[in-house]
């Protein structure tokens, strides 16, 4: 019976219902998409580094675990010394440059032969390896996003580069240029910012890491498993704060809209609450009716938010293919719980106010 009353009330005020559902849907979709985008970017970046195929990363002293963030270059000769150590199969020096000309992305300057030795080589979807110092390789996602074809030119580091090949994505950056060219353009001759190291067997990674640390005290050296464990949003400076602020904003919107919606409802339905009280409805009964109505609106909003988030992810994937959005069941559940909590808190005061209405005044309400 209470369900009938709630459903009929919700259907009786379609605009209020639509606005409340929309607000909750925006809240849920915002939480899912913001978190999904942050996690998607971090995880995609980590997966691409893992995709290089290295077992160990060697970086300068004091370097951030995030590739490309403010490290001083190391002499490439270090790589030659590392390659001489036992159980080391290959060492690929690279300069990882943060390009923020169009959007923030990483460009790898690579030595093709050693990078192939570590990664097993690129899979070319069209074109082929570098033919000249100002050639660039792009991955298929970048090519699709920018409608880039082999032979096209693009400006990198204030120089025109010709696209020599389009490679399958997943091996580090989305764009690669020859290491020597990168060294010239960044005034880092015979330097590298990262060494990708391949062991003769991945099982030796920790053992070789220890040997590297003895040889290069103070350098930042990670087995790839440790690097992958570090690449989470919890370890990215400020990212968790950003996510928390965005979630708080989204929950705040949901809370306020539900609060206003239910508060208005209580005012509109003062007489109806008086009627229920005249029939002997207790305070708890009135509170539950209001809370259940808010919960129904929220539940519909949550479903709409899920659907909206999936649609927006699809749209974003089409418009910005390089921005991966990972929608996980965990965060769907969190977003739903947050929306529910926000709406229960938002409707609690109006519910309490309704329960405390004087029945005589409520019945006389015009």
């Amino acid at each position, binding site marked *: 019976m209470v369900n009938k*009353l709630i459903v009929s009330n919700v259907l009786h005020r379609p605009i209020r219902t639509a606005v409340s559902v929309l607000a909750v849907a925006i809240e849920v979709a915002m939480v899912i998409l913001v978190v999904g985008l942050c996690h998607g970017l971090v995880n995609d970046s980590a997966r691409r580094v893992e995709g290089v195929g290295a077992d160990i990363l060697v970086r300068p002293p004091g370097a951030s675990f995030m590739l490309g963030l403010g490290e001083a270059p190391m002499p490439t000769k270090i790589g030659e010394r590392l390659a001489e150590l036992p159980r080391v199969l290959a060492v690929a020096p690279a300069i990882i440059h943060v390009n923020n000309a169009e959007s923030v992305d990483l460009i790898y300057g690579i030595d093709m032969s050693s990078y192939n030795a570590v990664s097993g080589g690129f899979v070319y979807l069209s074109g082929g390896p570098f033919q000249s110092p100002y050639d660039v390789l792009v991955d298929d996602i970048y090519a699709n996003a920018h409608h880039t074809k082999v032979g096209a030119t693009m400006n990198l580091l204030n120089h025109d580069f010709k696209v020599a090949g389009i490679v399958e994505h997943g091996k580090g950056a989305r764009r690669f240029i020859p290491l020597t060219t990168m060294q010239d353009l960044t005034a880092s001759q015979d330097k590298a910012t990262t060494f990708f190291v391949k062991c003769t067997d991945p099982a030796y990674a920790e053992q070789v890491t220890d040997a590297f640390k003895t040889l290069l005290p103070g350098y930042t050296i990670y087995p790839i498993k440790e690097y992958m464990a570090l690449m989470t949003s919890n370890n990215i400076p400020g990212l968790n704060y950003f996510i928390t602020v965005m979630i708080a904003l989204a929950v705040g919107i949901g809370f306020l809209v539900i609060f206003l919606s239910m508060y208005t409802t209580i005012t509109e339905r003062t007489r*109806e609450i008086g009627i229920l009280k005249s029939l002997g409805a207790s305070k708890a009964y009135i509170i539950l009716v209001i809370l259940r109505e808010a919960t129904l609106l929220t539940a519909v909003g949550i479903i709409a938010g899920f659907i909206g988030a999936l649609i927006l992810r699809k749209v974003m994937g089409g418009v910005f293919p390089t921005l991966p959005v990972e929608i996980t069941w965990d965060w769907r559940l969190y977003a739903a719980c947050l929306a529910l909590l926000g709406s229960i808190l938002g409707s609690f005061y109006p519910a309490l106010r309704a329960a405390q209405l004087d029945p005589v005044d409520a019945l006389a309400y015009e």
Partner: protein
Amino acid sequence: MEPIISVKSLVKTYRLGKVDVPALRGVDLVVQEGEFVAVVGPSGCGKSTLLHILGGLTGPSEGQVCIDGNDFRLMTDADRTRFRRHKIGFVFQRFNLLPTLSARDNIAIAQHIQGNGFNPHRFEAITRMLGIDKKLNHRPFALSGGEQQRVAIARAVICEPKILLADEPTGNLDTENSQVVLDMLRELNRTFRQTILMITHNPEAAGIANRIIRMRDGRIISD
């Protein structure tokens, strides 16, 4: 036999801002079970306040109110709500049906709030007696005033209350519908020995009661 309503020296004073407004100034009243009592008097004489106090919608300022053995002085607000749920049925001048529910659900919600479950036998008997059994799927806006008031009566008596309190039940009805509603109330009183206390301005309406109480300035002036 103990009276179903026993009121002694009942005083009710409302406070409007800093001004005390006396609504009842010492009312004594005894009603036996099965009586049909009409309370008449001019506007502002305290009729509605008396009805609200007897129904437990508001508490007295002073005096003793004892309904079916329940002394209001000893009852909290929650106790009075529980008491109202089980022992009182209200009929209002403005029908006061829930606009989003059908007639059937408006009646059934009283049973739901009472918590004793749906009693189909009584439901059928009441709705047939009140002549609304063919209108149960209609919402209030699709019913005439007379039909709405009969739905309100059905809602008020569906849980077999000890007392039916009717506040100007014919005040919003034309003569024909007023007569139908009054006939229904009299029928309820005769068939089910339903105790009814009805407030009215209308002398003809009061005429159907077994007993007429006149009020003025917060006091009973004749009984």
